[in-house]
């Protein structure tokens, strides 16, 4: 049994390596901060801070998978966040009009970046660097007359700061966020049922499945993880709207990339664009879709950030793109194209944000923080390359 587990780990070391790294980092910080790191309050804040980078990392994963990069996303997020603030505060639009409007602008922004890349074969580095400059200029343009624009719309502010509502106290579990707990339990049940169904289907086809005991361990592990996180969150304010948004984005993108025809086409284009083209896949169309989705997620990131700060600033979005790219690489995306998972990038984002949060709690200076994060980035990529070579 232990041997089985060892084998499983060895064969999937690349896949589990990231989770193990995250786990180790969390354990270390829990000790060095006397448990403050793992406290409900800190974990909740950590997840909320990860939000706007996490959604960018998801989009960036696909961009890197198809062998491109998008540097414009940070200031696009900043600019669109400012547009959202202006629309709310100056034009007096309803939040329910502003959000779809800004998301739509994001898609257009992404498609504009994709245009020279897909049509003329301009390197995306150059095209998106131009976008980086242009959006930075636009951000300054719309904020320079007023400086920081405060946002007061309660619904909009709640996206980045609010928590899902709870049912009133019922006598038991006082002080615990019951809806969060309930959602966690539903999530676990959903996961377990889904896995069991999947296993049964595979057995019907006579495919290989994990041995029963391994399967049980896997279910137990995931259930414990989800349960643990929910319990910790339920001890504070419960699940925030940011976490809901990120989970929704991850769920949709995970589904699209792993299960759909579109997802396959994206990975095929990344794996070998010529072969994909000859297989009847339009590389151009995929490029537009991926950059369009990147734009969409950039605007979502801008909304989350503006909402969290409750204001749009002249420097919003600075270096977001590099944080997102780093998260994707830490999460196992390959620069050679065709390899990388959405979930991996989310874990990558969590690893990077955990480092920041943990070191902040320890009082480590900002200078050292950058150095440590750089070291972790390069270590993660070395690990990834080394294990990939081993798998050959």
């Amino acid at each position, binding site marked *: 049994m232990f041997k089985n587990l060892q084998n499983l780990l060895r064969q999937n070391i690349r896949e589990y390596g990231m989770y193990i790294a995250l786990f180790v980092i969390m354990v270390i910080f829990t000790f060095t901060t006397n448990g403050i790191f793992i406290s409900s309050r800190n974990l909740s804040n950590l997840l909320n801070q990860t939000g706007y980078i996490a959604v960018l990392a998801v989009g960036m994963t696909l961009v890197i998978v198809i062998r491109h990069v998008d540097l414009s996303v940070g200031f696009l997020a900043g600019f669109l966040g400012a547009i959202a603030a202006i629309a709310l505060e100056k034009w007096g639009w309803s939040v329910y009009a502003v959000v779809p409007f800004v998301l739509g602008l994001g898609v257009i922004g992404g498609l504009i970046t994709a245009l020279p890349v897909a049509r003329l074969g301009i390197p995306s580095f150059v095209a998106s660097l131009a976008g980086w400059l242009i959006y930075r200029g636009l951000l300054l343009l719309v904020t320079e007359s007023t400086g920081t624009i405060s946002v007061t719309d309660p619904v909009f502010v709640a996206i980045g700061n609010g928590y899902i509502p709870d049912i009133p106290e019922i006598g038991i579990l006082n002080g615990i966020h019951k809806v969060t707990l309930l959602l966690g339990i539903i999530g676990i049940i959903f996961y377990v049922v889904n896995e069991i169904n999947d296993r049964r*289907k*595979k057995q019907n*086809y006579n*495919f*290989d499945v994990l041995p029963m005991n391994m399967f049980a361990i896997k279910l137990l592990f995931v259930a414990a993880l989800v349960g643990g996180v929910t319990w910790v969150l339920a001890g504070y304010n419960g699940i925030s709207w940011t976490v809901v948004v990120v989970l929704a984005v991850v769920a949709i993108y995970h589904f699209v990339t792993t*299960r*759909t*025809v*579109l*997802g*396959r*086409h994206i*990975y*095929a284009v990344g*794996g*070998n664009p*010529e*072969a*994909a*083209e*000859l*297989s*009847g*896949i*339009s590389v151009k169309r995929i490029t537009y879709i991926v950059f369009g989705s990147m734009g969409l997620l950039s605007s979502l990131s801008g909304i989350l950030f503006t909402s969290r700060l409750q204001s749009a600033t002249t420097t919003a979005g600075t270096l977001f793109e590099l944080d997102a790219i780093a998260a994707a690489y830490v999460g196992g995306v390959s620069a050679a194209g*065709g*390899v990388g998972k959405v979930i991996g990038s989310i874990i990558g984002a969590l690893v990077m944000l955990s480092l920041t949060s943990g070191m902040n709690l320890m009082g480590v200076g900002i200078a050292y923080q950058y150095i440590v994060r750089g070291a972790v980035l390069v270590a993660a990529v070395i690990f990834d390359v080394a294990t990939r070579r081993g798998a*050959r």
Partner: protein
Amino acid sequence: MSIPILEMRSISKTFPGVKALSDVSFQVARGEIHCLVGENGAGKSTLMKVLSGVYPHGDYSGDILFDGAVQVFKGISDSQRVGIAIIYQELALVPEMMVYENIFLGKEIRNGIVVNWNETIKRASEMLKKVGLDVNPAEKVRNLGVGKQQLVEIAKALSRDVKLLILDEPTAALNETDSENLLNLLKGLRNEGATCILITHKLKEVMAVADSVKGFRGGRTVCTLDAKKGEVSEQAMIKHMVGREIDNIYPPRKHITPGEVTLEVKNWNAYSPELGRQVLKDVAFNVRKGEIVGFAGLMGSGRTEVALSIFGNPAGYDLSGDLMIKGQKKELRGPEDAIKHGLAYVSEDRKGNGLILIQDVKQNVCLANLLEIAKRGVVDGNAEVKVANGYKSSLNIKTPTVEQKVVNLSGGNQQKVSLAKWLFVKPDVLILDEPTRGIDVGAKYEIYTIINRLAQEGMSILLISSELPEVLGMSDRVYIVASGRIAGELPIAEATQEKIMHLATN
């Protein structure tokens, strides 16, 4: 007898799950051309990688003696230092650099810290003369044809005082003239005392140049044949390679009366804006249901361009002329559209633009027709495995599971995956571009059998091939392509190698 220049003693090498070499011993005498023959995956290339240090000492068991001394190679640079040079099928030249820069790349002639270009150019010219290549040393490598690039590569090796030159399928990408030149060069070098190891699938070449032949099968050596003793013959080699005698390289075929015309092209012209020249001129041909039509011609004659221009024109040529599918005039907007109209194109370059090497067998097989196994855009993963397993058994793809990455398969099996991918599209017209390039005799026979079966089932097949015996052995009708035109059409009964060559070279 003098000591052999190379002796390898009981070399064994294991990959996870596969024993690639078991207890292989072999010797190469000074000044001979030693040919290695065997099916793909028989262990020839693996042995050469052990020899050249790609698999460093410790990765394998056994001993290498070179020039009478035991060698421990930790990397390619170690083997280069003692005078072993290996030239792979995929050339290792920098296209944007000039010929002389490439020849001395990594071993620049210098005065102190600066490169002595004059001396470099002079020495490069000498090297080019030695390999019989008449090009300006200041030409960019990208402007040379594959055959000439190969010669540059050999010149590069010779400039480094090689004692042993290893060539891995050097003629796979060459046309007949270039191949012949190359083989003559090897013979010339041998007469001057050089030693060569030549890996090739073309037994005729072995017959032409080999002093001795080593046969491989399943990671072991199965025979050593000596040319001086008259042991080298095609029959003998095939027998040892496959472990059985093959009387007929081409499977027998029931010639059925072909049905209606499925694909017809008239007045077909293509201009390539990228190359700035006309690539196809006034091409006209047709193919019928259940018919195998051969496209013979030299490398670069425009055969692939014909195929690509029909198959949705991914290269972006300016086209004019008529393309008729089942009697109806069509304009195809891209490969996607071509597939919808029942065309399929199995590319000649399976690694370059045929397969996605980092993905597994099942993903490659299903790629061009994912909608078939998807419901509302969601791929049914189980159906995918089922489809792939179906082709795995019907085409006899040798892979442990369909989850195996394609990069790990041998050439012949990769080609079958490529074929499976296009069969899953269920085309009416199947265009095969060099379907048996670089694959071994056994796998070739299997692929020929599959092609015949498909034609019998009513598929129209366009077979592009540089190997004339293949065209003659398989086709019902042959078109000869030369400089972007159809130079002739011959029914199979009238076609001979001589006639085809005559048309192809005029």
